[in-house]
């Protein structure tokens, strides 16, 4: 039983980070209908900067985090301005192709600046494990869970009630009609890319604190694709719940099935789930079907 709960907790924590990274996908998909395949590189960009500030310049963690988020926002803005905006009237597939190129470029830059070795964060969160009813959880796991839940609440409120949130949804719905309302499509795009980059950086810093960082971590961008597809590409709630679901299932498979088949299932399970979901619910668990009047 303890083993089961331990797997569950691990799954929830990993899942919460999946959810966070998936959120970046969802935000950009909602606004522009494009997938940002450079999302994984967005994720590793943040922790590298944060780590550099903390080790080389001895900046305290919270300030380093703040500067990291600021720089990530600038990265998002620059990418939007240089890569996405010139393709504004181009087909969506062009934007997706451009993000593939962008991902190679950023990955190369990361290798060049910070090298290939794995770097570990200096301890930021308290190291003594917390004991919740017999299950041992490290504080960094607990913190990442809390951060994700708080972000989910903030985003739900932001999209539902704020003026910019409404504009983002309106632009996602019908771009030309939105600009006839006086909404600036350019501004909305810039805002979503900025937010997506910030979210990715937060996710990256959390992972960096758990596992350390190295350039191959960018593959998380691919790992969370099943999450997004499970939850529904355009649903914030779906991204979070999909993240938890994949995280838990992955850990369960790793814990119970891997010993039987000799390992490796952990990486495969998400994609098996995606196949099943696509067969049964092509729009994902929470994705909108799109209203079609006939």
């Amino acid at each position, binding site marked *: 039983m303890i083993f089961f709960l331990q797997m569950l907790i691990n799954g929830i924590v990993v899942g919460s980070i999946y959810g966070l990274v998936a959120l970046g996908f969802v935000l950009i998909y909602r606004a522009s209908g494009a997938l940002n395949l450079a999302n994984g590189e967005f994720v590793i960009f943040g922790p590298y900067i944060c780590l550099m500030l903390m080790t080389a310049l001895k900046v305290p963690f919270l300030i380093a985090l703040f500067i990291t988020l600021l720089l990530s926002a600038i990265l998002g803005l620059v990418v939007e301005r240089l890569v996405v905006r010139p393709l504004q009237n181009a087909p969506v597939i062009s934007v997706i192709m451009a993000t593939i190129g962008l991902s190679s470029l950023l990955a190369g830059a990361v290798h060049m600046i910070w090298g290939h070795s794995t770097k570990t964060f200096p301890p930021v969160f308290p190291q003594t494990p917390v004991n919740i009813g017999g299950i041992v959880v490290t504080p960094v796991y607990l913190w990442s869970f809390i951060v994700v839940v708080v972000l989910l609440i903030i985003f739900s409120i932001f999209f539902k009630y704020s003026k910019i949130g409404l*504009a983002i949804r309106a632009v996602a*719905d*019908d771009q030309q009609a939105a600009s006839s*309302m*006086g909404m600036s499509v350019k501004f909305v795009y810039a805002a979503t890319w900025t937010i997506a980059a910030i979210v990715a950086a937060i996710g990256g810093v959390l992972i960096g604190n758990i596992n350390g960082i190295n350039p191959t971590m960018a593959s998380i961008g691919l790992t969370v694709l099943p999450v997004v597809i499970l939850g529904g590409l355009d649903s914030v709630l779906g991204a979070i719940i999909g993240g938890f679901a994949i995280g838990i299932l992955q850990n369960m498979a790793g814990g119970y099935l891997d010993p039987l088949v000799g390992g490796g299932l952990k990486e495969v399970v998400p994609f098996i789930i995606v196949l099943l979901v696509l067969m049964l619910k092509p729009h994902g668990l929470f994705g909108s079907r799109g209203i079609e*009047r006939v």
Partner: protein
Amino acid sequence: MLRVNNLEVVYQKIILALRGITLDVPEGKIVALLGSNGAGKSTTLKAISGLLAGDGGQIIDGSIKFQAEKINGITPDGLVRKGIFLSMEGRRIFKGLTVEENLIAGAYTRKDRINIKGDINKIYEYFPKLKTLQNRKAGFLSGGEQQMLAIGRGLMAKPKLLLLDEPSLGIAPLLVKEIFQNIKRINEEEGMSILVVEQNANVALSIADYGYIMENGRVVMHGESARILADKEISEHYLGIGKEESGNNKIFRRRQRVIW
């Protein structure tokens, strides 16, 4: 209030859609812009509201003046801020947003955010049907309800000039009458100038003060709406209003030909 002078528009740099169109919308009046498919009516409205670029269109000659200020070249959101609002053809409501959110979206450029709640209630007064549907996703509304929402959304922007593109499209005749009566009421109560593009010439002229008739990207006829309606030749030739027999006769005469 609005003066379009000798406007020429091309699409994709080769297709000449407007060939020098000139029209006037006086303050507080309803002006109807009529004509058959492809006459250039919607293009005119898009040119006025700055939305041509999205369709690959471009103004190559002429000018658009709004309150004596030249406005061609201003971005769409800038024009909404100046007080020109286009309610696009085919309603184009935000399907995934609720009715109320659609109305709030209409008020996007307004600075007086506190008055929005009251204005939403005013829209519900014009279109009581919308009140009962306020939390429904707009995509699930019927065509007529969506059109009411599209007009209501336009009113939320509090424009000085409201451009309506085919408010009767795909809507039952009875409902068309109701919607146009509401347009007239809005014009009278809010003093809003309205430029309405229509295929349904009869119903448009019944509320308009002045009418323009377009053909092949040109204005071929204009005058007081009562005069257009009264002039048999215009109504028959351009608008398809008029006695059935006269039309039938022509067809009959043309059919008298050699039979093999």
